[in-house]
């Protein structure tokens, strides 16, 4: 997840609202396909955009499979491994997961998968709540450049990028702008 919110006046749109919608619907189908017992799944979004994506996935799953899937929030700011080395502090949010986690599959949901450090912090956070049977990872965009051995189970779009480029996701309910994924070649 990118940490800054610059205005995107020099960016290239990679995905528009319709493309995003189709990608998320496909992911929802994949989740249904790969999880025999949907009631044991928790979609744990990383604030703020991850939680919005998790909410939309839950809506698709309700539409298709007629099941109300559990959702939650995992704050990773407290679990980052770089607190104190950054000039600005990350915002913290309260985490919320349905307990107990034993026997459950927790799917971490984020907007962009990049170095993998956010996903690692999320797994760290989950472990302080309990010991789920399985943890999976879903991201709207996978832009490559992993720094840790992490891979996503569900991906909306694979997008090879250069490290100095920036990916920014905008979601209507979070950013008050139309859904879009932007690429900035900085």
């Amino acid at each position, binding site marked *: 997840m990118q940490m*800054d919110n610059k205005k995107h006046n020099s960016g290239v749109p990679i995905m528009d609202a319709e493309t995003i919608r189709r990608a998320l619907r496909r992911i929802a189908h994949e989740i249904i396909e790969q999880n025999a017992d949907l009631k044991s799944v928790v979609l744990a979004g990383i604030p703020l955009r991850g939680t919005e994506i998790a909410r939309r996935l839950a809506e698709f799953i309700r539409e298709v499979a007629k099941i109300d899937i559990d959702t939650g929030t995992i704050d990773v700011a407290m679990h*980052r491994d770089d*607190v*104190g080395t950054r*000039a600005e*502090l*990350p915002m*913290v949010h309260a*985490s919320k997961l349905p307990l107990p986690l034993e026997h459950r599959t927790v799917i971490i949901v984020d907007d962009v998968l990049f170095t993998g450090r956010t996903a690692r912090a999320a797994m760290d956070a989950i472990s*302080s709540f309990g010991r789920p049977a399985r943890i999976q990872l879903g991201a709207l965009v996978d832009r490559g450049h992993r720094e840790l051995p992490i891979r996503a189970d569900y991906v909306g779009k694979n997008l090879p990028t250069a490290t100095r480029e920036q990916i920014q996701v905008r979601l209507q309910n979070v950013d008050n702008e139309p859904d879009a994924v932007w690429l900035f070649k900085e």
Partner: protein
Amino acid sequence: MSTNWSRKDLLGLRELSADEINFILETADAFKQVGTREIKKVPALRGKTLVNFFVEPSTRTRTSFELAAHRLSADVINISATTSSLTKGETLKDTARNLEALHADILVLRHSSAGAPQFLAQRLKSSVINAGDGAHEHPTQGLLDMYTIREKRGRIDNLHIVIVGDILFSRVARSNIFGLTKLGARVTLVGPSTLVPREFEKLGVTVSNQIDKVLPDADVVNLLRIQHERQRKEYFPGIGEYTTLFGLTKERAKSLKPDCLVMHPGPINRGVEIDSEVADGLQSVILDQVTNGLAVRMAVLYLCGGIAT
């Protein structure tokens, strides 16, 4: 998202803006959740060293800070006046510089001299957190009191908060006054005129010596601990008289509004400033204050200690 927080120290509430206070309370919401987890620990301050430097002794506040630091994965050292070299004549400045030489990242200081945390903050690169300086401020207590009010009543502005007791010598009272008035609450101070001088009205609060007139209109009653030490003997005649005139007895508690909160920073003197039954009663949020104190202190340590130096 990044925060706008830029202070390395928390010295008092008087210099904070309303936005900053609200921000700390919101951050405390996030940290309160950590206390409900199976593993009550996050790595946010991993590798940081926190020194509890309690020149004036305290078990409760120190324990709270210590636990907050542990939950953030910081390393904690406790120094008290008796175990420090202050008894050997070392000045406060030298003691603190020695701690800095040991790379202490955060210094939590409780001291009997007003202005001592400020003194250190000006001279050290470490974060300095005021855990109580003389009669001046006790900012984390003020914050946890406000957090508790906000949690139970949903807001702080336009509530009537009544603080009862020895206001003149109370750092808890001052921090509460600064924080609450800044967030728009209406504050009334009640106590003997010797301990609640009219001068306080210049701080934007009301002063009263008539507890029975004030209680029915209160949304929150915060009772301060009354001590009758040597220094106070000239200020009021004794515990018995204090309780008769100002104690929150069972009888007096009946005049409170049903949703009025009863608060106390602790430790309580049962039967003096508050009746035992009232302390344990339904309106009492005294234990919530303790739980919230932990969340607030985690928030403060995260914010101040997390700023890169």
